[in-house]
C-alpha cells in the first residue's frame, strides 16, 4: 500500500466518522423534540381530531381542545393555584436559601461541615414522601389544603438547590470587591446591597426560576396535600382515569410551556451550578 492510499483512507474514515457524529447529534435532538411536537399537534387540534385515526402529522391550528380545557370545571382555578404555589415557593426558597449560600461561601465556621451534610442529605431523600406525615400536621395547624402549606413542602424540595446554587454564585464573586467597599466606608450590609447584589441578581433570578419549575412540576406532594385547592398537576392526575384524551393533552401542553421558557432563561447557569455542587 502506498502512502497516498493510506492518506485517502484516513480522510475517508474521518469523513464518515464526521457524518456519523452529525447524524447522531441530529437524531438525539429529534428524539427530544419530536415527542413534544406530537403533543403540540394534539393540543392544536379539535377534540374530534384528537380522538380520530389515523393522526395527521401537521397541526390543524384548531383551538377546540384548548377551549375545552379552559372551560373544564376547576381547571383554571387549578392553573391559578399552581402559579400561586410556585411563586410562593420561589420567594421562600430564595429568601431562606440565599443567606445560607452566602454564609457557606464567605465564612469558615465550626459546624459548616455538618450543615453542608444536612443540605446534601435532603437531596438524597425521596422528599415527596414526607408529605404524608405533613398532611396530618397541616390539619392540626389549619394549613391543610392551602397554597401556603403546599408551598412549604415544595420549598423543602427547592431549598437544597437554592443553597447550593447561591453558594456557587457567591463564590464566583471575589471577596476583595466587598473588602474594597468596606474600606470606602460601606458597612457589611451596604457593601452587600450595593456591590454584591447587582452582580449576583441574574444568577439569583435563575435559581428562583429553578425553584419555580420544581414546584410547578411536583405531582405527589401536591396530590397528597390538596383536596379542594388542587394544583394543575394534582388536578390532572386525579382526573387521569376519567378525563377525555384532548383534555389530558391540552393540560400536558400547558404544563410543558413554562418549562420550555424557563430552561431557555436559565441555560447559562445550568452547568455552572452543578460544576461546584459536585464537590
Amino acid at each position, binding site marked *: 500500500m502506498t502512502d497516498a492510499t493510506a492518506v485517502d483512507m484516513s480522510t475517508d474514515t474521518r469523513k464518515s466518522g464526521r457524518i456519523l457524529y452529525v447524524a447522531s447529534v441530529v437524531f*438525539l*435532538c429529534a428524539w*427530544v423534540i419530536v*415527542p*413534544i411536537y*406530537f*403533543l403540540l399537534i*394534539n393540543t392544536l387540534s379539535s377534540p374530534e381530531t384528537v*380522538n380520530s*385515526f*389515523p*393522526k395527521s*402529522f401537521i397541526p390543524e391550528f384548531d383551538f377546540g381542545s384548548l377551549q375545552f380545557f379552559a372551560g373544564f370545571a376547576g381547571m383554571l382555578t387549578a392553573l391559578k393555584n399552581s402559579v400561586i404555589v410556585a411563586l410562593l415557593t420561589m420567594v421562600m426558597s430564595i*429568601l431562606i436559601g440565599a*443567606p*445560607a449560600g452566602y*454564609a*457557606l461561601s464567605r*465564612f469558615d*465556621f465550626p*459546624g459548616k461541615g455538618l450543615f453542608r451534610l*444536612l*443540605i446534601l442529605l435532603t437531596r*438524597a*431523600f*425521596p422528599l*415527596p*414522601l*414526607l408529605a*404524608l*406525615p*405533613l*398532611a*396530618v*400536621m397541616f390539619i392540626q395547624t389549619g394549613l391543610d389544603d392551602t397554597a401556603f402549606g403546599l408551598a412549604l*413542602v415544595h420549598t*423543602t424540595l427547592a431549598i437544597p438547590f437554592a*443553597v447550593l446554587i447561591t453558594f456557587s454564585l457567591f463564590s464566583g464573586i471575589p471577596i476583595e470587591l466587598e473588602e474594597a467597599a468596606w474600606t470606602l466606608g460601606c458597612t*457589611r450590609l451596604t457593601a452587600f446591597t450595593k456591590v454584591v447584589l447587582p452582580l449576583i441578581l441574574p444568577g439569583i433570578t435563575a435559581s428562583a426560576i429553578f425553584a419555580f*419549575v420544581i414546584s410547578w*412540576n411536583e405531582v*405527589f406532594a401536591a*396530590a*397528597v396535600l390538596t383536596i379542594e385547592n388542587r394544583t394543575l*398537576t394534582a388536578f390532572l*392526575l386525579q382526573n387521569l*382515569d376519567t378525563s377525555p384524551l384532548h383534555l*389530558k393533552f391540552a393540560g*400536558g401542553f400547558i404544563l*410543558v410551556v413554562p*418549562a*420550555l421558557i*424557563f*430552561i431557555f432563561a436559565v*441555560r447559562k447557569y445550568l*452547568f455552572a451550578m*452543578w*460544576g461546584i455542587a*459536585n*464537590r
Partner: protein
Amino acid sequence: MNARILPYVLILPVTLFLCVFFLYPFVLVSQQAFGSSEGGWSLDNFREVVSYWKFPISLKNTLLLAAVVVPVQLALALLMATMVSKMEKGRDMVLYIWTIPLGISDLAAGIIWLAIFEQSGFLNSMLSGIGVIDRPMNLLTYQNPWIVFLAIALAEIWRATAIMLVILVAGIGLIPKEYYEAADVFGASKWKQFTRITFPMLRPSLQTALVLRVILAFEIFAVVAALGGTLFPVLMGETYAYQFDLLNSGAAAAMALIILGISIGFTLIILRILRVPKGASI
C-alpha cells in the same frame, strides 16, 4: 454584626426550616409506620403491606424499571456529554434542546408519550401509514405488559436523561485540557482517552448523577399513572393508593419507609462502587 455570629444567623432560617419540614416529618412518618392501633411499637404495618399481593409485583416493577432505565440513561448521558464537549458550532443550541426535558414534569412526560402510544396515537398512525397494520391496535392493555413497560421506560429515559447530562457536562468541564493534550502526544486513541482520562476523572460527577437518578427512579409515580394506570403497579403508586383509596396512613407510612430504605441502600452501594480515593479529586 459580629463576624463570629453572623454565619450562624445566616444559616439559621434554613436550619430551622429543614428541622420543621424535613427532620420532624421524618420522625412523624417513622412513628406512624411503627405505630399500631393499640399504641406502642409494632411491625404490623410493615407485615400488612409486605404480605399484600400487590407488593411483590410493585417492588419487582420498580426495581426492574430502575435496572433498565438508569444504565441506558447513564450511557446516553455519557455519549451526549462527550459529543457536546467536542462541538464547536451550535453547542449552546444543541445543549438547550437536550436539556429541555429537565423542566418537564413526570406527569407531562407521561402524557407526551401517551400521545404516541394510545390507541389512536402517533405510533399506530405511523404503523398503519407504512402498512404494517390495517387498523389501530390498543397497545396499553394488560395483554401487552411489555409494551406498557416499554412505553414507561422510554418516557423515563426521554425525560430524565437531561439531569444526568447536565451534571456530566459540568463535570467534564472541570477536567484539565492538558491531560488530553498529553494523551494526544503519546498517541492514545479517543476511546482510550475516554476510558483512561474522562471516566476516572468524572467519578465525583458520576456519583452525584447516579445517586440523584437512582433515588428519583424509585420515586417513579406520575409517568406510570399516565401511561399504565393500574396495569403496572409501582411502590410509589401503592403508597398513594394506601393513603387515598384505602385511607390507611399507617400502611402508607410503612411503604414510604420501605422506599426510603431501598433508596438509602442503593445510595450507599453507588457511593461505595464509585468512591473517590482521598486526595485524588480534581
